């Protein structure tokens, strides 16, 4: 049913013992669009991303049900090769985590795991990824420097580029701009507009305005429940639920 490169979430639910972290819901996001996910802290936004990247496998005591289809195959299936799912569905975390090595080695980390080591190929891929993350001009001459020399905003864009090095089909972003200055935020938002042409993007954000600026579709999560999801403009101008309206107008959350 879904277009190539799209992600089709069906009846997905996550429980931790008796507690429902995510109540069953369905959602789809296609290549060429950005799905914004908004909601107050603790509403399950990050859990959702961790499920999609299978990082949830590292968490103790969580049980996941439902299916998530990428190109028609369920990535939650038991026989799935998890590392290859993670290469196809990349994630950028809310706190920038440069690995303690050079910018070059950070970027080459993913491809090298997959066995790509020739400098020519890595170089081409690096320029492409850094340009897409709006960082190329700033680091072009300093790729051999430790990544910790970069500013916070640059580090976050490097993390984005590091994820892009694997040419993922789906890009997950977990509050990528929290703690960044407005200029870095603007650069990342601009980068996403270019990236969505090549992949499906899910942007989790605490910043309602950011979702309204960037997202094509927006989903509102509240305490593990998908309250509503629709084209961003509709959701912001004409929300179907009272709770959505209250949240986006800032009356709670």
């Amino acid at each position, binding site marked *: 049913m879904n277009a190539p490169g799209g992600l089709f979430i069906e009846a997905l639910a996550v429980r931790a013992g008796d507690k429902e972290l995510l109540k069953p819901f369905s959602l789809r996001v296609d290549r060429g669009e950005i799905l914004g996910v908004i909601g107050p802290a603790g509403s399950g936004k990050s859990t959702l991303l961790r499920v999609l990247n299978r990082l949830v496998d590292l968490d103790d005591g969580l049980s996941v049900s439902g299916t998530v289809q990428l190109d028609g195959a369920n990535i939650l299936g038991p026989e799935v090769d998890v590392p290859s799912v993670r290469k196809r569905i990349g994630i950028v975390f809310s706190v920038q985590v440069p*690995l303690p090595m050079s910018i070059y080695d950070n970027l080459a980390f993913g491809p090298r795991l997959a066995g790509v080591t020739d400098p020519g190929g890595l170089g081409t891929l690096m320029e492409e990824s850094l340009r897409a993350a709006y960082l190329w001009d700033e680091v072009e001459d300093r790729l051999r420097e430790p990544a910790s020399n970069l500013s916070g905003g640059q580090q976050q864009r490097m993390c984005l580029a590091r994820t892009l090095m*694997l040419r993922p089909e789906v890009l997950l972003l977990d509050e990528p701009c929290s703690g960044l200055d407005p200029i870095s935020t603007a650069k990342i938002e601009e980068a996403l507009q270019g990236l969505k042409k090549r992949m499906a993007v899910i942007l989790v954000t605490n910043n309602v305005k950011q979702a309204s600026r960037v997202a094509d579709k927006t989903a509102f999560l509240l305490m593990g429940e998908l309250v509503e999801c629709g084209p961003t403009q509709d959701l912001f101008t004409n929300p179907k639920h009272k709770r959505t309206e209250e949240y986006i107008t800032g009356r709670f959350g």
Partner: protein
Amino acid sequence: MMGRFFIALSALCCAVIVAMTAFVLGDIAYFGWEKLTLSFLLAAPEQGMAAGGIFPAIFGTFFLVLIMTVAVIPLGVMTAVYLNEYAPKHSRLVQWVRLAIANLSGVPAIVFGLFGLGFFIDFVGKGMDAAFFGSRLVFGQPAILWAALTLALLTLPTVVVATEEALRAIPDSHREVAYSLGATRLQMVRRVVLPQAIGGILTGGILAVSRGAGEVAPILFTGAAYFLPYLPKKLNDQFMELGYHIYVMATQSPDVEATKPILYSTVFVLLALTFVLNFTAIWVRSRIRRRLRLAK
């Protein structure tokens, strides 16, 4: 009033400790310095240890510690990596292994010596002789290999604990980044965890070496010789060792008075060796701590 009393009391305690250390070091340096020449370090003992040097003991100590290191580092590092990276957190097995390691570090050294005699020599060594050498006596006797392996067991907790400490200092976010980029667990350990833990592993290794170099009890029954006219060349040779040599000179020498200056110098050499190793470990560790602080 009480406060001042306790401050004075703890200052006194510190002073006593410093004074004792200074006295021991000063005494050894004063009496040991005189005999300490290059030829003393490079010659073999003569005339029932009343003359000559201590080269075989220095050589034996280095050889012993080298084999011990080769055995203990991989075993200790792999144990720590398993406990910290592979085993399910809070599992029964992990708790038992940690408890066993903690207890291992509390076992008296002489018990390790007896264990080495019973397990390595009588069980493993004799078993090897029966299986491969037609019961000819090859490995079923005290040898540098068995002494080194016994010391490796003794120093295993040091390496495991130091490595685990280093592994715990690595933020989980680094592991998640590696996984999120498609790393398998082995790739994550090899490319993210071990490179960052290398300093802690090194520190543990050096501490193990400095501890191992000074222990006498574990090698007493497992391979150390009173006197040997040759240097150990094979793994099943016996050997002379500094700590054991000190014990022998102090208690077994035919002429205790005559060996006294040599005894002092030997103690001086052994202390210098372990101090250098300890200071290296401290230096390496502080460098790594500084680097970690800068990275954060």
